[in-house]
């Protein structure tokens, strides 16, 4: 295997990880501040992708689509928080699981009602099309590098927001002691709505960016949702840093496992058999990694201060 292929795969793993981070950051923030398990987070991802595809098709501009995806997902998040989720903070996880499970059904069929049954078209913006050369002679798509860059920017932005701003201070306070910030006169209701909308917007952004690479269709959010849960559990729920590390870890393990395992098994079992078995093990790999990590560190890699 050439070094160029390996470098390319590492970048692919990183890009996948960064995309997972955008999903996981919102999930972990919502859990950390409000203690809520949100199964419907994948729906915001889908809403972002559909909003971007619809607006891009209508205006011809991917960038307007991207803005629309942020706005639509944030708005959907805020509405859901005010109408439904607000009533669930004091409930146990079981009620939260059922309510947000119901939200998935509602959002999925609602989207299909609005946009029809066929997948939508969304392409990458012309500016970011094409590939740039890598050391070793390979080419790497510019758009994927842009996703990596966007993810890193979001990570830095979140860090600054949480560490240095007033809102961030309240979020941190909310994570460590919920009653306390209420007593301090912070309007908890609007803080929660804000955090929820922020998390939804990040998911929507991820959906829009990835929608240009993949298929914009109903149900696209759930596979990513499951992976995002794996990420935050590995990283430690409530920890943004944990989400970042977990996301990159999952991205790299999954990508490299898919590349290397079939080859490994092919050496032992012959090409055709080995490819099938290797692919089967590769599809289970991240779950195996997650089980191992939790067996050794039941609170994840970076336990939050809960």
């Amino acid at each position, binding site marked *: 295997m050439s070094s160029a292929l390996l470098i390319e795969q590492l970048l692919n793993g990183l890009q996948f990880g960064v995309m997972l981070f955008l999903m996981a950051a919102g999930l972990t923030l919502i859990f950390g501040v409000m203690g809520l398990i949100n199964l419907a987070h994948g729906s915001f991802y889908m809403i972002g992708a559909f909003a971007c595809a619809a607006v891009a098709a209508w205006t011809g501009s991917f960038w307007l689509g991207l803005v629309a995806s942020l706005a639509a997902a944030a708005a959907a998040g805020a509405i859901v928080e005010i109408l439904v989720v607000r009533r*669930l903070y004091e409930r146990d996880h*079981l009620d939260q699981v*059922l309510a947000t499970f119901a939200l998935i059904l509602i959002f999925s*069929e609602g989207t299909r009602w609005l946009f029809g049954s066929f997948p939508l078209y969304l392409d990458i913006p012309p500016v970011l099309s094409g590939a740039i050369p890598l050391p070793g002679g390979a080419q790497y798509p510019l758009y994927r590098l842009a996703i990596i860059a966007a993810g890193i920017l979001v990570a830095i932005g979140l860090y600054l927001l949480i560490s240095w701003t007033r809102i961030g201070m309240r979020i941190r306070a909310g994570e460590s002691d919920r009653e306390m910030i209420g007593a301090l006169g912070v309007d908890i209701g609007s803080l929660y709505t804000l955090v929820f909308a922020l998390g939804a917007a990040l998911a929507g952004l991820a959906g829009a960016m990835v929608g240009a690479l993949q298929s914009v269709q109903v149900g696209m959010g759930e596979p990513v949702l499951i992976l995002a849960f794996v990420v935050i559990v590995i990283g430690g729920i409530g920890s943004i840093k944990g989400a970042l590390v977990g996301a990159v870890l999952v991205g790299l393990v999954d990508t490299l496992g898919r590349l290397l395992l079939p080859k490994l098994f092919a050496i032992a079992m012959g090409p055709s058999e080995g490819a099938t078995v290797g692919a089967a093990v590769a599809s289970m790999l991240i779950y*195996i990694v997650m089980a191992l990590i939790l067996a050794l560190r039941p609170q994840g890699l970076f336990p939050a201060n809960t």
Partner: protein
Amino acid sequence: MNRSIPVNVVLALLPVGIALGAVAFDEPFFVTLATRMAILALAATGLNLALGLGGLVSFGHAAFFGIGGYAAGILATHALYMQPILTWPVEIGGTDSMPAIWLVAVVVAGLVALGTGAISLRTSGVYFIMITLAFAQMIYYFAISWPAYGGEDGLSVPTRAVFPGVNTATPMGFFAVCYGALLVGVTIFAILRASRFGAALQAARQNETRLAAVGIAPFRIKLVAFVLSAMLTAVAGALFADLNRFASPSMMSWQMSGELIVLIILGGTGRLFGPVAGAVLFVLIEHLLGGATERWQLFLGLILLGVVLFARGGMVGLLAGKPRHG
């Protein structure tokens, strides 16, 4: 006055009523529906042991449901074609006898639950929810890519398994077996809940440190509950495969795990007959909505949301009022 006894009696008799009504009005499909209710109720009763009594929110019980289904499918297939499953170290053949299939389902699911439970129970809260999900996903992907028994295509169960003294090929005969299994499952749940083990399990849910202080290891109690819970769900899975004459990886999908949880909450968490109420309601809603509109999943979502927000305690909670204890 506690209304839970009459409500429980009504709920216990509801599937029988539906099945007998189906025969009386010559609507044979309702026997199938009642059978489906009984099986799903049994699966959820199994989960309720872990979830309702022990507070262990397993998001991976579909794996055990699927293991039961595959036990039925694999054993019946081997019995039909008379191929042994194992030839070494001992020769093991297929079988189409329900008790034998259940035994295999219970043993395999129990062993898997013992292994995964021992790891999962080191965690708690959301971590527990997610690690059980991860183990179920692992088994799900394994089933999809394991070609010997059909992979994603699933496995046809060629002939319905037999039960001594009952003609399971008839809808009513099979319903009787499933309903009987449900009653046994509910009885086991009731006995366990009232036992010292059940008391310790519920104490473990409420206050683990206090339990440890009186010299009971919460880990062991929870592990036993998790394993028993998986075993009951596996029996339901075997019956489900016999009902559909088919076992498939989708029995192990995370949506199925979610549906089992939904059944419990819909009926009333921790209530003896909660899963029964939940299963009756869910199957009826699915049947009626599915027949009425293409967008049935949207309305199903709205109904479920309504139940969480406005009907706390589920169906049984609405009918019988608050539970006497935690």
